[in-house]
């Protein structure tokens, strides 16, 4: 084995690698379903990291046996936390895909950009913002609006 490469190094590289791949995946995917997958992968990485934080290389699993002498055990607390985290993760994932199903039904596809645009359009439409005016067009009324023509005339320019 290559010197310097320890089990811990492999493990935390794997953990961080998973998180980063997941993160990059979320940022880069153009398809919403892949974003869910990426999130799942990132969560896996975080879970690994958490277990790793309680891991001892010289210890056994934290289960008491009817023996006189108890050997050293790994830290049980992170394991309990990871149990929680895993279940949380799957709950969120299930919710995410159910929302995806609805989005797919309503918008017809799951392209990230497309969905964002359609959502924007729908929000604008439901707010009653006229579509013929794009979001980028000036509001037409400024807070310091120039006075209407008849007064502007008499007010004149100023020095």
């Amino acid at each position, binding site marked *: 084995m290559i010197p310097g490469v320890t089990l811990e190094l492999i493990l935390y590289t794997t953990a961080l690698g998973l998180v980063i791949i997941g993160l*990059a995946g979320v940022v880069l995917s153009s398809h919403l379903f892949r974003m869910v997958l990426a999130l799942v992968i990132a969560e896996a990485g975080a879970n690994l990291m958490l277990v790793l934080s309680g891991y001892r290389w010289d210890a056994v*699993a934290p289960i008491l046996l009817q023996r006189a002498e108890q050997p050293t055990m790994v830290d049980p607390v992170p394991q309990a936390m990871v149990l929680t985290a895993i279940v949380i993760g799957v709950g969120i994932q299930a919710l995410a895909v*159910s929302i995806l199903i609805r989005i797919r039904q309503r918008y017809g596809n799951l392209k990230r950009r497309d969905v964002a645009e359609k959502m924007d359009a729908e929000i604008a439409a439901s707010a009653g913002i006229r579509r013929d005016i794009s979001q980028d067009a000036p509001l037409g009324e400024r807070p310091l609006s120039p006075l209407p023509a008849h007064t502007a005339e008499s007010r004149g320019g100023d020095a």
Partner: protein
Amino acid sequence: MRNLTGLLFAGGLGFMLLAIASGIDFGSPPMRIGEAIQSASPQEVGAANIVTSVVLGYRGIDTLGELAILFAAASAAGVVLGRRHTTTGTQRKGGFVLFHGGALIFPFLLTIGFYIIFHGHLTPGGGFQGGVILAAAFFLPLLARPGARLHHSILSVIEAFAGASFILIGLAALAEGQAFLQPMLNQDTLGSLISAGTLPLLYIAVGLKVGAELASLLSNLAQTESEQ
């Protein structure tokens, strides 16, 4: 361009995190509370599986929160997907193996699930793992016979009372003048099935809750009717 920047950024972040994490002494954690729990747990909680005593004892409210999250996710999925009691015609009938295998495997899964739940305080496994298996047990027939449907009302009653009983067990301790979720009943012999006080009860509640929650989630996903 965006792809490249994203990759670069992610890579940079990963590199920095790696560099920083290399400062940690992995493999020999400080275990400030871990060791204390290990030594105190047999007396305080009495479960052979220390993870269980942490999950249900020391960090019991985390578990409660987690059950609530599952419940929230299932409810939210229910809100999103709507609960349709009709089956969809689009699903193909499951294959022969799935159909009969499912029928065969159902009691088997049920047994395993409950076994894991009941032994949660002794051996690895417990409410979560057992609950998932229970969910699978109830879901398999659905996959095998698309026409079948889960009894949602029964499921939701289980869901409700399993969750409620977890809290009620906790509240019972409160009513006794102890702290919320404080383990009660006597602990008995470490390592025997009837031991660790209320912990097995809690795990049963967890198992049923997780099972019911996941089953309803799965069936929701499987039975959603297309709106189009």
